């Protein structure tokens, strides 16, 4: 097997939701989809995809994905009535280029907005 090169990509996103959001479901769905997309590139292995969501009124969610076939790990809780959050995403993989990581990560954010019929807005900050 060719040497696997460590690569990483990090981004801050501001998420807003029209009405009370199912934040945990949305973030887990996003990270698990990223894991599957990175895996589908067929060139590398996933080290760790992790995100920390901080809510303006306090509270946090830490979501962690290590494989396209294993469920996400979630810690923390969402305060009631929250309509926004700031998400820090850190992707660490082997064998996938940074440009491709950035492309897939952005594309899946857009797809998440589409799937939620525009109820979620994600902005890179």
């Amino acid at each position, binding site marked *: *097997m060719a040497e*696997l090169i*460590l690569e*990483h*990509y*990090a*981004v*801050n996103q501001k998420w807003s939701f029209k009405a009370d959001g199912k934040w945990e479901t949305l973030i887990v769905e996003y990270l698990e989809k990223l894991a599957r997309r990175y895996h589908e590139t067929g060139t590398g*292995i996933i*080290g*760790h995809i*992790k*995100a*920390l969501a*901080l809510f303006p009124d306090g509270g*946090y969610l*830490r979501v*962690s*994905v*290590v*494989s396209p076939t*294993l469920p996400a*790990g979630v*810690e923390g809780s969402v305060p009631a009535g929250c309509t926004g959050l700031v998400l*820090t995403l*850190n*992707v*660490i993989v*082997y064998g996938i280029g940074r440009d491709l990581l950035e492309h897939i990560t952005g594309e899946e954010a857009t797809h998440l907005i589409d799937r939620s019929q525009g109820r979620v807005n994600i902005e890179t900050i």
Partner: protein
Amino acid sequence: MHLLLFTGFLGSGKTSLIIPLCKGVVHLGRRVAVIVNEIGDIGIDNQLMRQLDLNVWELVAGCICCTLSGDLVATLQKLDSNYAPDLVIVEASGAADPKSVLAALPYYRGQPLSSVRTASVLDPLRLAMLMEVMTPLVTSQIQHADLIIVSKTDLARPDEVEFARRTAREINPTARIVSVVAREHMKPELISELLPWLN
């Protein structure tokens, strides 16, 4: 100042163990500092630990086993001079070889470290795959441990847990091996295993 190095592959569960360990040690009236080394432009674990009011120093954008080994030593010296904790926990990045991290410690020039202990966290769900593609790194992480913690045992199949324990034993016959479940509260017995000097 005692030093506890946490090593283990990316996503093995190091942070999930360190957070309750810190809380447990602080609860015993001891001063704890955590040095977090994270791969990436933005640290997640250090933000989370700050959110939980833990005393955190971060080393990001590199690995303490190579490019940031000097930063680790400098951070230890600053901690010794300015904060004098009873315990420093170093969370190595999941890509770090503990051999190189430990090799940097003799360059530390503060008060002598009272003890240096290494704990390696093994994820039984991925160990078989990692032993195929990351053999030297994972082997070193097991080899240099005083204590091996098999994590996520409630999520893994019994044969995966058994494989992890057997692999750990074959590579490191002298280390203690313990098993924990995902997001378990830190049991006093595990604190004693990690920090025997507290007893």
